[in-house]
């Protein structure tokens, strides 16, 4: 024990005498650890962001999408969610399945919104009264459209928070305003609370308008829907309902013509794609760790050559081969760990700034792995120079000038 303390103390003494060399040697590991930790943090942030987007939808929701969108856990190559569509008969079929609470169809239309302060194109989603529940919307002012609005084909919409503020200035201002869609006037009856997010990973639900699908028939005379949302009694029935839907739909459609997906499935598919991308980036960054390790090995060989005489002296007064080995190994591990610790510190700094734009975060596991990997690099690349030092013949080392 005293030996270990002494070894580390003398290594630290040595570093403080060669501060610049120590820093430059650790720099490779520092940069490598920094890059790896930051990339993992971004990857984790992205994962969290995507799952947050999906979480709101609830675990008891099933989506029906035309075509094959998932195969074997990932998106299939020929994936396209816009080929084909569903109709009213599908809705009736779904409603007859056990444990289906409600069915919400979905169509999308791009419209021009003439707001009070802005005019631009936005998308309107036509669906049923179950939409807010399925999507996890909450009302800020006014109300959602209800079952009566759907039955009466009322010309009403509720709008995302961002639409309200961007086009009308505020949620209060938007209420009661009219939105014209192909000469049809819709009244704004509600504004949702902001769900945040948008950008990468998922749709920005704050930037849509939402109207009853029955009213939407005006622009959709074929009464076709590009999505159907199904809500089950609770999440335990999801698997059974999925099977039942498949069975029923196979009577009408070919297997490739529709997909029954859960948000969690989509989530895992998207996440797995990003995970692979992230892994590739991390692997590339890890190359710099390798280069840093070689730098440490190089400097350790120099150190051993510089200190042959010292090694001879230590051997003469009783140091074993293993003592010399651990001394130089400790220095290599310390060098790489210093780089690792500084790299992690710098990464915390970097991630702190990245958080202003992106939900990146560093978890404890990443830190533990980064520390583990950097000391492992010290051992791996330090062991060869250290073995060279340990295997020097004492008599030759002590005669060395």
């Amino acid at each position, binding site marked *: 024990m*005293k*030996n270990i303390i*002494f070894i580390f103390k*003398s290594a630290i*003494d*040595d570093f403080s*005498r060669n501060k610049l060399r120590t820093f430059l040697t650790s720099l490779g590991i520092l940069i490598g650890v920094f890059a790896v930790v930051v990339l993992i943090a971004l990857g984790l942030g992205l994962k969290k962001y995507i799952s947050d987007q999906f979480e709101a939808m609830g675990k008891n929701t099933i989506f029906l999408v035309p075509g094959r969108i998932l195969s074997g856990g990932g998106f299939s190559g020929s994936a396209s969610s816009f080929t084909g569509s569903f109709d009213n008969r599908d809705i009736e079929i779904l409603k007859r399945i056990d444990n289906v609470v409600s069915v919400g169809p979905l169509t999308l239309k791009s419209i021009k919104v003439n707001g009070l302060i802005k005019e631009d194109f936005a998308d309107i989603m036509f669906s049923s009264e179950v939409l807010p529940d399925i999507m996890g919307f909450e009302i800020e002012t006014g109300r959602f459209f209800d079952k009566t609005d759907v039955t009466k084909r009322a010309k009403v919409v509720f709008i995302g928070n961002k639409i309200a503020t961007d086009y009308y200035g505020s949620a209060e201002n938007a209420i009661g305003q009219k939105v014209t869609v192909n000469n049809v006037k819709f009244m704004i009856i509600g504004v949702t609370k902001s769900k945040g997010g948008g950008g990468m990973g998922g749709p920005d639900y704050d930037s849509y308008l939402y109207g009853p699908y029955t009213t939407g028939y005006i622009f959709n005379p074929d009464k076709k829907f590009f999505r159907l949302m199904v809500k089950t009694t609770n999440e335990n029935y999801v698997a059974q309902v999925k099977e039942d839907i498949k069975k029923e739909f196979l009577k009408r459609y070919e297997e490739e013509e529709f997909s029954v997906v859960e948000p969690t499935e989509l989530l895992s598919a998207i996440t797995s794609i990003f995970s692979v991308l992230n892994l590739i980036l991390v692997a590339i960054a890890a190359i710099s760790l390798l280069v840093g390790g070689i730098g440490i090995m190089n400097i350790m060989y120099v150190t051993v050559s510089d200190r042959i*005489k*010292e090694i*001879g*002296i*230590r*051997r*003469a*007064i*009783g*140091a*074993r*081969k*293993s*003592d010399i080995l651990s001394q130089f190994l400790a220095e290599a591990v310390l060098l790489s760990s210093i780089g690792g610790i500084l790299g992690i510190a710098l990464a915390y700094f970097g991630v702190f700034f990245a958080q202003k734009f992106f939900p990146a975060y560093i978890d404890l596991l990443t830190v533990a792995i980064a520390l583990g990997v950097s000391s492992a690099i010290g051992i791996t690349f330090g062991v060869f120079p250290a073995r060279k030092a340990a295997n020097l*013949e*004492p*008599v030759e080392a*002590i005669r060395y000038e």
Partner: protein
Amino acid sequence: MIKLVNVSKEYIIDSEYTFYALKKANVEIKEKEFVSIMGPSGSGKSTLMHIIGLLDKPTTGKVFILEREISKITDDQLSTLRNEFVGFVFQQFNLINKLTVLENVMLPTIYCRKELDFDPTDRAVEILENFGLKGKMNSYPNKLSGGQQQRVAIARALMMKPKLILADEPTGNLDSKTGHEIMMLLEKLNKEEKITIVLVTHETDIAAYAKRVIKIRDGEIV
């Protein structure tokens, strides 16, 4: 205590020429002896000392330390013997310049595996005080005079209470006055502490401190 039987050390220079640093040397050193090994430079006296001090192994022949044949013991056991049984004093002092005087003297205890029967710091301080180096304990060796450095080296050699001190031209880098002071110190250790001393030198007056002189020339004991 130490017995060398027909010990040779060969260096193969090329296929036709082998250099004998030591040729069939037979040496025996008894406990509490003060022996000097004398010979001109290149005579093989340093090789002899390195073999006695377990820093080097003979090409042929047998070396016995405390009745044990050293070719039969492991490198770790050799290290332990160097640590506990032998103390070295070199011409070049061979102190580690980045360690303080005190740390240098205490260094052998770091490599000791057994329980020490003394406190390392207390013992190091005591020896250094006896050697008149009280004020120099936290200095670095390269700030000291040659005589002081050699005293630090002797202090380090004494640290583990060795049975044997090997001194390789300990006065070679010192002026004659300091050299004699160092020799008197070694003489005192032999007389008072009963430590066996093997001294390597080419100077007759230095060799004269020893009670027995082994002469060596061209690798052969004469």
